[in-house]
């Protein structure tokens, strides 16, 4: 085992200047800006769903959109806050009200107006396009989130990965309801709950490993 004074000397010798991280809220804003850019590009490429304006006037749909978007924003802020060592773990509760509102709203809608998949309700082509939107939105956002949260790896990898994936899931769900006519209840459930569960689950399984991959090298060199 290396002696502690020697370790200190070698660390001090390696003390290259570092750039301080910006405040967490600002970093969250940067990430959300990236999300906005991705959504805009997708809107230009795929086109907004034709009945968006009409649907937005329905309170249930508008509330569902707003709450999922809010969940995404708050989860991103919470993710950047808990990635810092000296911030309280209680920030994890920040997106909870929005999350509860979002999921309960979707659940309630499904309960009161169950729309079975009609003959023209769903086609393979639509599902494939939905899936394309899902991947195109979530992939760049996940990677950006992963890289931006890499300093959380030695601290709270699970909490940070959980919040980050919740943010990605909420933004992706918003994108799906922006671009695709998913009115069948099963589809709404699938694309809302399904995305949330998918990303949070992926974070649970791969979060630590992915962090290890992007984490600062000096820390894991010893393991």
């Amino acid at each position: 085992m290396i002696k502690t004074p020697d370790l200190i000397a070698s660390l001090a010798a390696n003390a290259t200047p570092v750039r301080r991280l910006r405040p967490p809220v600002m970093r969250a804003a940067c990430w959300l800006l990236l999300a906005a850019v991705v959504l805009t590009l997708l809107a230009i490429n795929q086109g907004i769903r034709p009945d968006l304006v009409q649907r937005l006037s329905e309170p249930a749909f508008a509330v569902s959109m707003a709450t999922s978007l809010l969940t995404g924003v708050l989860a991103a802020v919470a993710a950047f806050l808990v990635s810092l060592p000296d911030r309280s773990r209680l920030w994890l509760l920040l997106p909870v009200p929005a999350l509860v509102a979002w999921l309960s709203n979707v659940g309630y809608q499904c309960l009161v107006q169950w729309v079975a998949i009609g003959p023209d309700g769903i086609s393979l082509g639509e599902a494939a396009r939905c899936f394309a939107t899902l991947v195109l939105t979530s992939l760049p956002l996940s990677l950006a989130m992963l890289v931006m949260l890499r300093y959380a790896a030695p601290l709270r990898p699970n909490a940070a990965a959980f919040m980050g994936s919740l943010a990605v899931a909420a933004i992706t769900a918003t994108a799906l309801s922006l671009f695709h006519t998913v009115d069948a209840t099963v589809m709404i459930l699938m694309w809302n709950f399904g995305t949330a569960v998918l990303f949070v689950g992926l974070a649970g399984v791969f979060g630590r490993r992915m962090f290890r991959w992007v984490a600062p090298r000096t820390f894991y060199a010893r393991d």
Partner: protein
Amino acid sequence: MTHEPRGRGPSLRLVGKDDRSGAYGTASVTRDVDWSILMARAQEGDRVAYQRLLQEITPYLRSLAARRLRDPNDIEDVVQDVLLTVHSIRQTYDPSRPFAPWLVAIANRRFIDRLRRGGRTRDREIPLTAEHETFCEPPANLEESLDRHELEGAVNNLPPAQQRAIRLLKLKEMSLKEAATVSGISITSLKVNAHRALKSLRKMLVDRSEP
């Protein structure tokens, strides 16, 4: 130095929190401000400040670790882990916030990791003891000390001139020339005495083993 006025306000507030975890009084306030300044300089690449900071926090970390862990080796190891973590995520420190809570949060993570690892090791591994080593290392199986005592006894029974020759030439492994200068006896006489000594030793030891 520019960070001092900004650092003082919040550190007063949060050192109150720190008090509960064991830092005391105004001394800890000034210490915290000092550490904030040192860390801010270290982030700008000031190696001297960084070294001083690490040296100053090491005893503090040891005392924190001693509350959680028993084994002194574990404590030193975990302190080094904390230092490495501090080094790898030093850009996450914001000089406008107090230093101690930042450090303690990192340290606690590493302590918990160490405790968990200790638990896993206890569950799954059996440490090697001296008995296990006896089987792996050949010297551990040979009781050389007994032979040495017997030989010493035999050498003590020799006449003094032979004793001196055997000690210098065989036990201390000197050359004839060295032994001659050390003892003042001629090389020929040393040779003769050593030869006689070996002969009688052989006789004594063979006699003893074949009674």
